[in-house]
């Protein structure tokens, strides 16, 4: 009995839940620093806080060994500006990225990444992660530095980003948390933040959680809390029916619980109106079709007749040789490529080499005949092996799902060309073909999160943010570095902070909410139907085009669903309980997105944000952040300059602020 059919058809009775049921039971835990989320950001936050002498507890919905978006591996380690071969300064890299995002990026978090990414890589190396070609497999390759054995990606001249053997990243981080005596509560879904006197907008004193195997409630009391949970997902589109969770970039656990908890506690969130369109459940196997970007960057693409598709540099000049794809053009200081850093999110100064937009026209005119293939055999041996063997093999969801699965089926990169998906011509405008063909009203939040200061502290005392919990774009090394930084600041705060007290009334309200879905009624509804219903509201009322009219109606509809259908959500076991509670999160995040969309009364190309009633695109007076928060049941917004982090009360340079906020003493790692 292993498959679904065995279970249902075997003529046996339904097996009992395999874990003890502890509904209503409660554990209370006290700690200096509480880290919510045990992914890349959370592990680094916990480790750096523990090294500062704090007692640390991690709360993780899955299991820390392999959970989180970086839990299945990593191939690129970006922004390692401080590595001995880099020609790019942290300041230059930060400014290039912030400018690329037209200012809509988190300056403190980005600068911390550029300063500490290399230190963090060395730290991971000490924990057992391979970050160098120690066996010499790539000796002689242009992207290898013989002295350090480091392997570089994307831009072989400026050498700011590394190729790493990151498949074992999460197990190594896990081991380090154990070594440091950090206690992790696995399978515990954080459900709410606890605040002083149970009020919103004041100091955070801990959190509640529910075990999704046993149903037991956990009450965590903490001097400082680091929110290190992922970004919201499953807001506009949700279907497990197509491909399970296979076709989504985030796993099903990732819904934005942290964002909803922070909002309910009164924290300020920025950038929640920003989104982009997605193919939802129709994407292809991640990194598992031929394409010329990211993990497969630099791969030659040929059409059905074997004709190569041309590559261009950022100025539009066609590149002749394969090696030119990895070198900046004449006069260009460095290129930014990968991790979403292509196309409109980079400035012309750092625009990387690419297969350009004209591919769509070439397909239409018949000049390029579909399907395209990734012509691995034509590449120099080192490049071929780097793409299929190093990058595919270490990037998340590639070791088993792509490398092992494909080679077992006979795929041989030395002989075979992997086909690219056949899509409408315009879909090839994005070089990331595995993402598939997107649908305009199917959207995903991009970069919305906690508004933070130079301590990566939120607007609430005692609450810090790391990784995707924070406003701004991010990647693996960004999660690691912001975790280190936030963990340090949280530990420093906790050292002098008073002992927190839990408000029992607040706890009682949360206890009632958490266990409500256990009541079965004739009109009960499962979590999937709830999730998909909320998605429909978002598609229609808060889709590609929004207006005050649709958003206000959408908010009314969400409020009605909260009072009606959401209360009928039924959970047959603790696992389903977690999933129903996720629907509470999804509904709350939907409200946040609608409020944030109401607050921005202008359209924006940079934010992929369209208001039918405010069609002017990026008018100068709206080049700002409009963070929102909840205050006594009302939504408050304010204007914040995009470069708030370089304006008073802060210093005018990244360096000065970084140093003034503890950055001069990066922790020394585990050695």
């Amino acid at each position, binding site marked *: 009995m292993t498959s679904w059919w065995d279970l*249902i058809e075997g003529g046996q009775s339904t097996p009992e839940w395999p874990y003890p049921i502890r509904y209503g039971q409660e554990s209370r835990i006290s700690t200096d620093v509480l880290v919510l989320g045990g992914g890349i950001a959370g592990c680094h936050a916990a480790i750096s806080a523990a090294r500062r002498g704090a007692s640390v507890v991690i709360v993780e919905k899955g299991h820390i*060994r392999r959970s989180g978006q970086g839990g299945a591996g990593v191939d690129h380690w970006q922004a390692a500006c401080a590595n001995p071969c880099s020609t790019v300064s942290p300041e230059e890299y930060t400014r290039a990225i912030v400018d690329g995002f037209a200012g809509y990026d988190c300056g403190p978090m980005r600068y911390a990444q550029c300063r500490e990414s290399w230190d963090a890589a060395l730290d991971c190396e000490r924990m057992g992660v391979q970050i160098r070609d120690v066996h010499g497999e790539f000796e002689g390759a242009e992207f290898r530095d013989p002295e350090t054995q480091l392997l570089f990606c994307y831009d072989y001249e400026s050498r700011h980003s590394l190729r790493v053997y990151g498949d074992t990243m999460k197990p190594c981080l896990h081991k380090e948390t154990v070594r440091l005596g950090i206690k992790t509560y696995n399978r515990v879904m954080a459900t709410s933040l606890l605040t002083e006197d149970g009020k919103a907008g004041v100091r955070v004193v801990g959190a509640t959680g529910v075990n999704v195997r046993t149903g037991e409630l956990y009450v965590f009391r903490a001097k400082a809390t680091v929110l290190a949970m992922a970004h919201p997902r499953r807001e506009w589109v949700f279907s497990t029916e197509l*491909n399970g969770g296979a076709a989504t970039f985030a796993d099903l656990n990732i819904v934005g619980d942290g964002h909803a908890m922070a909002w309910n506690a009164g924290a300020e969130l920025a950038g929640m109106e920003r989104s982009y369109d997605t193919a939802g459940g129709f994407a292809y196997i991640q990194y598992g079709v031929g394409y010329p970007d990211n993990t497969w960057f630099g791969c030659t693409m040929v059409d059905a007749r074997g004709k190569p598709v041309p590559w261009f540099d950022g100025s539009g000049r066609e590149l002749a040789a394969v090696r030119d794809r990895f070198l900046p053009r004449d006069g260009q200081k460095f290129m930014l490529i990968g991790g979403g850093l292509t196309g409109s999110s980079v400035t012309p100064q750092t625009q990387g080499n690419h297969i350009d937009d004209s591919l769509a026209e070439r397909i239409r005119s018949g000049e390029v005949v579909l399907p395209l293939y990734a012509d691995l055999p034509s590449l120099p041996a080192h490049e071929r092996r780097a793409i299929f063997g190093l990058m595919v093999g270490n990037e998340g*969801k590639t070791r*088993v799902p792509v490398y092992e699965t494909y080679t077992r089926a006979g795929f*041989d990169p030395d002989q*075979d060309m992997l086909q690219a998906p*056949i899509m409408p011509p315009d879909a090839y405008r994005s070089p990331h073909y595995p993402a598939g063909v997107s649908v305009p009203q199917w959207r995903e939040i991009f970069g919305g999160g906690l508004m933070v200061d130079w301590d990566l502290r939120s607007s609430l005392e005692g609450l810090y943010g790391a990784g995707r919990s924070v406003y701004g774009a991010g990647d693996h090394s960004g999660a690691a570095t912001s975790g280190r930084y936030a963990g340090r600041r949280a530990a420093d705060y906790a050292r002098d902070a008073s002992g927190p007290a839990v408000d029992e009334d607040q706890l009682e309200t949360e206890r009632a909410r958490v266990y409500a879905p256990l009541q079965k009624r004739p009109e009960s509804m499962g979590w999937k139907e709830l999730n998909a219903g909320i998605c429909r509201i978002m598609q229609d009322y808060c889709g590609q085009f929004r207006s005050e009219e649709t958003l206000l109606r959408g908010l009314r509809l969400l409020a009605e669903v909260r009072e009606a259908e959401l209360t009928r959500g039924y959970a047959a076991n603790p696992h389903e309980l977690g999933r129903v509670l996720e629907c509470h999160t999804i509904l709350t995040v939907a409200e946040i997105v609608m409020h944030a969309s109401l607050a921005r009364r202008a359209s924006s190309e940079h934010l992929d944000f369209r208001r039918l009633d405010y069609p002017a695109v990026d008018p100068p007076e709206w080049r700002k952040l409009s963070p929102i928060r909840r205050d006594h049941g009302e939504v408050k917004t304010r204007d914040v300059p995009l470069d708030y982090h370089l304006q008073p009360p802060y210093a005018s340079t990244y360096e000065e602020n970084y140093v003034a906020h503890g950055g001069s003493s990066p922790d020394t790692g585990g050695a």
Partner: protein
Amino acid sequence: MDRRVYMVPNPPMPNIPLQFDAAVCNGCNVCVKICRTDVLMPNPERLTPPIVLYPDECWYCGCCVEDCPRPGAIMLVHPLNQSVVVSWKRKKTGESFRLGMKDPPPPNTRPPAR
């Protein structure tokens, strides 16, 4: 064709993300322990492969396969909606292959870079 037939709901989709080889798996439940979305449940029958209770929640990350102490006990099988278009062409011969084809070519045994 004499067999018992039951009233059962439709199977969740995708059907079988993970195939267990009962001859190799010893029911140690490491995969149950580490699966991020709790797709797997320990089998009530000890020393036997776990139950794939929530195939529709699988992220296809392959960590269970990687962390399994008995190689070959678990095989990850992509949903047909995705795997059916994974294909490749042998450059020299022009032959086409695809993931899941009936008579696949011999495996390529080269391990990933180390």
